């Protein structure tokens, strides 16, 4: 039996999305074709776009579908950078996802970009004073400011409206992949220039996401081809996934308030239980304003990969931060940005609770935690060979 506590990595697909996928996959037609079947599929795609735009507080034409959140982030960072040849500075928070930090790093290494990271305060939010100073002194150099809407490891919601106010005319992008469908997120109300959302974090399928981009703006594309999506993102429209994305998002947002309360209650129950199960645990994640289900905790004297292995053998799925494809565990840059030492960052776990979890599951996790932590401590190998 598996107790799945890694919803921030990916959430279980919901029935609404599966039904939508199944139905749409049986339809033939390229949404860009002029014939009847093509037009029919185009209508389904545009209905989905319309629905999604209402759910996210945008105009339908502001939604540009992409193949992943990573692609949308790359499109925003590189697109804004290439649109402003006279501005080579990119400002992001220090604890962005790698899908933001790495494209910026690539532009630094290959395209002469300069990067400035906004530090993180002890409260788990960006330092607005720092941003204010950068904008005041270097504003005319900044091509784009990108700050995530909520942090995927700490759960903390970022003051994006403040960022927009400070930025003035500078484009602001926000990676809202973790927020959308879980907490209030309204594109137009926030006033950002662009935002990233992704289906699989809200119960939709993998491989479909969107960049929301204000109308009338152009971005330098990464993919060239058929000119779909305002000629910003070419590629045959993935109609089944788009339709399922909208269905999943509708389901998530319709139930958002109920789920928020339920998940938050489980989170608080878990944190209270964890503190009594493991006396020296420290909680890094932010309680409010925050995503409801993120718990990030440090277990001193352990290594996260040992904790994950032991939890896995108990049937419990957790994470040590972002899933890392290289597989070599590294101390989380998010926790280091928050001010943790590398060894404390390396001794930390992220547990992300979702709609499918129950109190009974949390009780089972709490029951095994003391022994898991004890074994991980036994295994802690202090480097220092003779």
């Amino acid at each position, binding site marked *: 039996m598996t107790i799945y506590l890694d919803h921030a990595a990916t959430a279980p697909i919901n029935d609404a999305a599966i039904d939508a996928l199944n139905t749409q996959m049986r339809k033939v037609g390229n949404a860009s074709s002029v014939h009847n079947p093509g037009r029919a599929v185009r209508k389904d795609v545009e209905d989905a776009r319309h629905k999604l735009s209402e759910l996210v507080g945008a105009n339908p034409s502001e939604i540009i579908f992409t193949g992943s959140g990573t692609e949308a982030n790359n499109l925003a960072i590189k697109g804004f950078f290439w649109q402003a040849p006279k501005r080579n500075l990119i400002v992001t928070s220090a604890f962005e996802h790698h899908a933001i930090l790495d494209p910026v790093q690539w532009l630094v290494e290959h395209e002469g970009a300069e990067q400035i990271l906004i530090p993180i305060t002890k409260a788990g939010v960006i330092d607005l004073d720092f941003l204010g100073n950068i904008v005041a002194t270097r504003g005319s150099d900044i091509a784009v400011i990108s700050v995530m809407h909520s942090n995927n490891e700490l759960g903390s919601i970022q003051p994006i409206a403040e960022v927009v106010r400070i930025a003035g005319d500078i484009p602001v992008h926000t990676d809202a992949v973790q927020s959308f469908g879980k907490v209030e997120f309204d594109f137009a109300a926030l006033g950002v220039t662009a935002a990233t959302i992704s289906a699989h974090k809200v119960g939709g399928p993998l491989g479909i996401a969107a960049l929301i981009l204000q109308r009338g703006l152009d971005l330098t594309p990464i993919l060239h081809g058929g000119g779909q999506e305002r000629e910003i993102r070419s590629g045959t429209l993935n109609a089944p996934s788009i339709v399922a994305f909208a269905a999943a998002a509708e389901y998530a947002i319709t139930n958002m308030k109920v789920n928020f309360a339920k998940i938050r209650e489980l989170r608080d129950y878990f944190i209270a239980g964890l503190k009594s199960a493991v006396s020296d645990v420290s909680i890094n994640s932010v309680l409010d304003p925050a995503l409801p289900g993120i718990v990030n905790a440090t277990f001193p004297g352990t290594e996260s*990969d040992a904790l994950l*292995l*032991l939890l896995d053998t108990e049937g419990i799925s957790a994470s040590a931060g972002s899933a890392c494809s290289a*597989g*070599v565990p590294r101390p989380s840059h998010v926790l280091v940005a928050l001010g943790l030492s590398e060894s404390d960052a390396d001794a930390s776990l992220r547990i992300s609770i979702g709609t499918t979890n129950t109190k009974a599951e949390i009780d089972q996790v709490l029951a095994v935690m003391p022994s898991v932590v004890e074994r991980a401590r036994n*295994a802690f*190998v202090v480097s220092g*060979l003779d």
Partner: protein
Amino acid sequence: MKLIAAMSGGVDSAVAAARAVEAGHEVIGVHLALSSNPQKYRSGARGCCTIEDSHDARRAADVIGIPFYIWDMAEEFHDGVVENFLSEYADGRTPNPCLRCNEKIKFAAVLDRAKGLGFDGVITGHYAQMQETSLGRVMHRAVDPGKDQSYVLAVLNTEQLAGAHFPLGDTVKDNVRIEAKRRGLYVANKPDSHDICFVPSGDNAGWLRDRLGSEVGSIVDEDGKKLGEHKGAYTYTIGQRRGLGITVPAAGGEPRYVLKIEPKTNTVVVGSHEALAVTKIVGDRPIWCGPEPTLNIEHRGFAQVRAHGSPLACTYVQTGTEIKVDLDEPLFGLAAGQGLVIYDGDRVVGSATVARTE
């Protein structure tokens, strides 16, 4: 038993893990990341440290149906193996990093971690046989003489060997490949690794020069007469004949060999083949793989000084801190730092590090 299978991404460790599962053990696959920057130790299909190798290991674990994790042992490997390799060469000795890795990483850091996590031991794809005998649990050579790896495992003490499992020791390599294919492990045809994994180019001398410098020194004969120059004494090995670049011929025209490396003066001493002859070897840091031989009395056995060297009949004495070996026939060319392994027939008695020779 609950066992950790160390999976390199090669065919041997994959089959070893599969056999352990079949034998009814609860097995978890672990790939050791030995470099914090895998590009650094990149070695195509030959090594065991690339991203591709970790993917191969993961895929094998998936096919076998066991959980799989990557353990970051880069720091331990660098401090315990790579640094030691460099410092040994800088001291004019010839280390064997595979011995060192088995002693300090696979059956120390990994085994200790496995035990801490509640596992009973470590499985590897090494070719050697553990046998329960009247002497206790002892290690024997593998049945495949071409693949036998008991030499590089002879640095393990009885406690380490108690937690070590080598499921392939009873099988010849060809049959392991056939078995891998039958089990659907696509690494079945992956080439064997040969080189030192952290020297992917195979250019040991160049790798050492890059790190220890290439200061010019003298090549001299046994009387101290200068015959030529070299670029770093540590890039030579005792017994080396080729690549000396000496233009002054020997008096009798016979070939010359490296006899000695003197790191302090950066001097390489060369001489005749006869001068390489060694009959007495003293090894320090003795490690016993089974019952410890009685102190200070002569025992008969075989000495082996290279991974694929021949066993040499000998008489040996152990003094508690050293093993003194008297070979029946001389061997030609032996460097301090090499592993000295003592066998009793096919049974591994123990090992020491060559300290000096006569």
